[in-house]
């Protein structure tokens, strides 16, 4: 029996995708303990927003995660609308839902590209980034920015869709849908990809639920739960889509769930475009909300994200708490890591879809 040893993987390490540290104790090559350390990117977001007016926080919420910024600014506006107690026009709700799903696809594609490089396939990176660009171009057309959109407003969205937007989205979806098959072929039919993901980083349903895993990582452990259907917001209760699950609970299952979700997202965007009514896209809101609290939770590409807002009747929030799905998923990662080889760390942590901006806030 060799002596056990602690290894720091990070804060600067090709595996980490951002600034965080993973301390692992290894016995030979097998991990016997693991401890993620975060906080290198802590910006004091929750303190910062206490000194900003409500509309000033929207661009800050965008910057919580550059990969899925639309979901974060949308979540902030959803929570603020519940504090202000206002209804959003129907057309704005449809635009938002379509954008959230486009954001989900582009976030998943970026995740796939990152996993590709982690597992040594540069082709997956290039193909993933190429498809992602299609959706970023659509967002540029809609609001002028590639990643931090600043598009959602409290009470609607900033502007209506440009002319021909519907046609362009349909074109992109028609191009993208058959290409999902190409992306899958790159991964599924690659022997090394399968060897590095199947039966690696297993977690069972009971542990996943107790440790607070949410999103694709939880659905991969065989729990059929999606907040879009479970606690519907915007117009998800009027749409028809499936919740993708898998039962194996390993890295490969998590990858499969995300690939299937992209297909469902395409379906949702098509339905939104079909049903989208005409009308206004934004309502006026007062400067100060009434006193009270509100909570909103949505299904982020990474899991359940939640915002809890306390208003004291002034134009600045008294307290705004962010529950980042990645923060909790990362705290559950030791359960997946233990017993695996140290060479499996990039696969396990890569498939979790790390984003330090929202983890550290």
């Amino acid at each position: 029996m060799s002596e056990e040893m602690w290894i720091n993987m990070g804060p600067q390490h090709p595996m980490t995708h951002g600034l965080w540290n993973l301390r692992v104790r290894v016995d030979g090559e097998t991990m016997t303990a693991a401890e993620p350390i975060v906080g290198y990117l802590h910006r004091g977001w929750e303190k910062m927003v206490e000194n900003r007016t409500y509309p000033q926080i929207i661009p800050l919420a965008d910057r919580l995660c550059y990969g899925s910024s639309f979901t974060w600014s949308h979540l902030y506006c959803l929570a603020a609308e519940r504090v202000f107690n206002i209804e959003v026009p129907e057309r704005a709700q449809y635009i938002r839902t379509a954008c959230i799903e486009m954001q989900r696809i582009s976030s998943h594609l970026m995740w796939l590209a990152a996993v590709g490089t982690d597992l040594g396939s540069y082709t997956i990176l290039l193909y993933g980034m190429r498809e992602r660009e299609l959706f970023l171009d659509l967002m540029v057309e809609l609001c002028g920015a590639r990643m931090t959109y600043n598009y959602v407003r409290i009470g609607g969205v900033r502007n209506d869709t440009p002319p021909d937007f519907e046609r362009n989205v349909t074109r992109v979806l028609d191009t993208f849908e058959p290409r999902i098959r190409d992306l899958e072929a790159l991964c599924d039919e690659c022997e090394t990809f399968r060897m590095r993901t199947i039966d690696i980083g297993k977690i069972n349903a009971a542990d996943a639920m107790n440790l607070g895993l949410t999103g694709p990582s939880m659905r991969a452990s065989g729990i059929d739960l999606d907040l879009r259907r479970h606690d519907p917001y915007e117009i998800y209760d009027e749409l028809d889509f499936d919740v993708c699950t898998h039962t194996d609970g390993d890295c490969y299952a998590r990858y499969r769930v995300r690939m299937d979700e992209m297909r469902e997202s395409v379906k949702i965007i098509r339905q939104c475009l079909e049903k989208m009514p005409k009308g206004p896209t934004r309502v006026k809101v007062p400067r100060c909300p009434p006193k009270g609290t509100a909570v909103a939770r949505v299904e982020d590409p990474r899991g359940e994200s939640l915002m809890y807002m306390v208003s004291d009747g002034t134009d600045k929030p008294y307290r705004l708490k962010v529950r980042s799905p990645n923060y909790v998923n990362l705290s559950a990662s030791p359960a997946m890591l233990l017993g695996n080889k140290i060479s499996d760390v990039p696969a396990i942590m890569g498939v979790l879809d790390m984003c330090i901006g929202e983890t550290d806030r």
Partner: protein
Amino acid sequence: MKVIIYDKPDKSEEEVAKAIQSKFPGTVEIVKITPRNIIMKVKREGFLDVCMYMKDEVSFEHNSCVTPVDYLDHFTVVYHISSYANHLMAEVLVDLPRDDPTVDSITPLWGGANWHEREAFDLMGVIFKGHPDLRRIMLPEEYQFHPLRKDFQVGRRV
């Protein structure tokens, strides 16, 4: 392995609220019931028992969030606990006096609360009794202050 499916809610919001209220009449006070959401106030002394009952008997499987709020004269710790089977989320408010911000930890029940409680301790200075590893998580170990408290002087505009 089978997929665990939660398609229809087992109990309505009122039934869940009534079950908890009647089990702990002196400790729990239901503040508000809205669709898919229950807000209740729980006294600090019986808090852990209420949580245990919620987890074991009323199937609250998931702890979403732990939020400490500083109201200057007292702290309120807000727990968002979700029930997958009943399709709802309970908002549990626990008031703590400002000079003794101590509450029982729920990490032994829901492992997902671990880092939320560490963060609450780090940024707000709330102490969770029975937490397995209550250390600072965001700020360096040697810091002497809790920046999310309202009496924390930020100096310049943050």
